[in-house]
């Protein structure tokens, strides 16, 4: 249990540092390996969105990560200084069919399918994304 903090440069090859920490914190919070990995996936997608759609390129700024690990609950906060970018809007998948999914949009879908809460704040020229996940009933 506890708080984990990490700041990484906005580079795609540093996302693994963030997801590794998320996985560790999720296991400490009591998640099973599948749910912990799902959290890693969701946070990895959020970081990728910050770099590609927020900063619009690598090495344009940092991603500040803080993770609060409590029994049965994981809260991840990602802070960046890119122009406003809100990934908290639920992606519209009504037009999707299982046989012909769009090639794009999968990252947001993964974030929203995995996390229980996705909250976005714009404050002091910073994007703050807060992701919360609870241990699924019967898991852990």
């Amino acid at each position, binding site marked *: 249990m506890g708080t984990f903090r990490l700041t990484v440069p906005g580079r*795609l090859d540093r996302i*693994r540092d963030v997801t590794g920490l998320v996985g560790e914190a999720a296991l400490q919070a009591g998640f099973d390996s*599948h749910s912990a990995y799902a959290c890693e*996936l969701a946070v990895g997608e959020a970081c*990728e969105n910050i770099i590609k759609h927020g900063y619009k390129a690598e090495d344009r700024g940092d991603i500040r990560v803080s993770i609060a690990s409590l029994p049965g609950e994981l809260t991840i906060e990602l802070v960046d200084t890119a122009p406003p970018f809100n990934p908290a809007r639920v992606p519209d998948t009504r037009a999707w069919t299982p046989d012909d999914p769009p090639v*794009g949009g*999968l990252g947001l879908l993964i974030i929203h399918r995995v996390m229980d809460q996705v909250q976005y704040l714009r404050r002091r020229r910073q994007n703050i994304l807060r992701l919360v996940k609870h241990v699924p009933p019967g898991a852990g």
Partner: protein
Amino acid sequence: MEITTQEYKRLTVVTVTGRVDSATSGDFESALHGLIEKGRFSLVLDMAGVEFLSSSGLRVMVSVLKSVRQAGGELCVAQPAAQASDAIAIAGLDALFRTFPSREAAIASF
């Protein structure tokens, strides 16, 4: 991430191991599209050694699947590690990819 390919008469087995994410998906895409450009449209993707599969990797898989099917081929997934099958399921793509519990079963499906 490491990619190895084995070409058989009727199909090609692509073995990918490690982390398939936004940092590596470019190489993954190049390898698979390189096979398509050579006319190899029957592909078995052995994912037993995949440690992480992000949407970037999934996008490549969907794009390649569409390309090979348009050419009359198929992309099958063989013995996916839990990290690969979990990512495919979370993205809702499990109905899209034909998946087999072993490499041999995937090869036999062609």
